[in-house]
């Protein structure tokens, strides 16, 4: 038993290591891109459209509405980043129903990578919206004394983002693995269903938190404003 799919190394050459996490990530990416290509191959711009196109439109519009609901006015600006985050996490977690599959999100490397992407994107979107000076000024408001606390907050929430997702997914995979050894019938199925629900919830939480962080970066922060604790 291994805690992370990173431990399953398929190929290695010096510092380059091809482990199971990367391979499964490529598989999820391939599924997502191929699905998008197949569905958007014959897109209808008229009133009648296929069921798959309807599903995709529903998903995209729902994500757009969620982003707007968080407080980002120009939702389409952040749609690519946030929607890709949600779709990748959701697809990675949904595939746990496939026997032998280990979600890439059960790897702390993956969750850290995603958290770092969010960590980098937040100041990028903030600078893009307010300019470098305006964004940096938000770190010393209402007083310069808040600067270290703000930096610690940025780092800690990024770390929390990564650890939360990793912990949930890894624990789910671990529980299923343990239950398979103890009670190979019934319980693993129930726990798989629970893992599906947990995975979807975690994908949603990760994406929403990223949106909230970006939205918080776009505004001059009140001293009392902080990210919602989940």
């Amino acid at each position: 038993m291994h805690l992370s799919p990173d431990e399953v190394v398929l190929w290695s050459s010096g510092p380059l290591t091809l482990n199971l996490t990367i391979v499964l990530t490529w598989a999820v990416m391939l599924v997502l891109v191929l699905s998008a290509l197949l569905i958007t191959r014959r897109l209808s711009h008229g009133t009648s459209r296929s069921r798959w196109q309807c599903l995709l439109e529903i998903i995209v519009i729902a994500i757009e509405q969620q982003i707007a609901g968080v407080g980002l006015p120009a939702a389409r600006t952040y749609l690519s980043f946030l929607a890709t985050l949600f779709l990748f996490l959701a697809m990675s977690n949904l595939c746990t129903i496939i026997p032998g599959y280990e979600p890439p999100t059960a790897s702390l490397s993956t969750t850290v990578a995603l958290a770092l992407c969010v960590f980098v994107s937040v100041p990028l979107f903030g600078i893009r919206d307010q300019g470098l000076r305006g964004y940096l000024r938000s770190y010393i408001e209402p007083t310069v004394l808040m600067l270290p606390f703000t930096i610690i907050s940025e780092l800690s929430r990024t770390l929390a983002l990564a650890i939360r997702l990793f912990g949930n997914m890894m624990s789910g995979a671990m529980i299923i693995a343990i239950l398979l050894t103890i009670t190979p019938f019934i319980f693993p199925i129930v726990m798989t269903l629970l893992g599906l629900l947990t995975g979807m919830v975690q994908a949603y939480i990760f994406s929403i938190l990223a949106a909230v962080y970006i939205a918080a970066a776009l505004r001059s922060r009140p001293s009392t404003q902080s990210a919602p604790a989940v």
Partner: protein
Amino acid sequence: MLIDWFTVCAQALNFLILVWLLTKFLYRPILAAIDARERRIAADLADAAARKAEAVSERDDFARRSAELAGSRTALLDQARTEADALRRQLSDEARSAAEVQDAQRRQALLNDGARLRETITGRTGQEVIAIVRRTLGDLASSTLEERLVEVLLVRLRALDGPARQDLVHALGSSGKLLVRSAFALTPAQQAALRQALADILSAPVETAFETRAELICGIELIAGGRKVSWSVADHLASMEQMVAGLVEARADAGQQSQAHPSQSAVH
């Protein structure tokens, strides 16, 4: 160590690539399709709104035209009614005039018929009366009708009173002769008797001439100067003719009145 930093970098790169791929193959086409559909729906809604506004405008225009048509219809009906009244009056006048012309023609025809009838009756009556009188006198007496006429003339001459007789003598004295006209030729005996009677009445022989005139119709007259003593069926026939003419005119008037009333009711 749970964190493999090479994997972290690779996963971050994978994620960025996935963002780019999904943006290119998923979000952009889907959002373009959604935007195109929304634009089309918006255009359809705008077109529907424009058509609705146009329909409302056309409905208002139709209502206005209907109102105008109703107004003009009333005016046209009034004009048609006025023209029909004028035409009716014109036709009535023409019919009345034609009826009056026909009535005048009919009345003239009646008068002509009456005149012809009068002439016919006069002629026929005279002939019939003469024939009847002649036959009656012939049947009732031994003398002829001419003899009786001569006797009647003589009786009238003898019955002349003083002034009338003086006028006759005075007229005889101015002309110098007598003229006796009869519808038939007097026999010599009758002429002699007549001369004798005249001589007795006038107390002197008189030159007497005899003349035959068929228009006297069984009559005889004696003319001296401007005086005349006569008896003739023509006189009776003249009075009868006047009576017959009176009857014909009365019938003509009655016929005109009886036809004038229906024609007037037909005109109105």
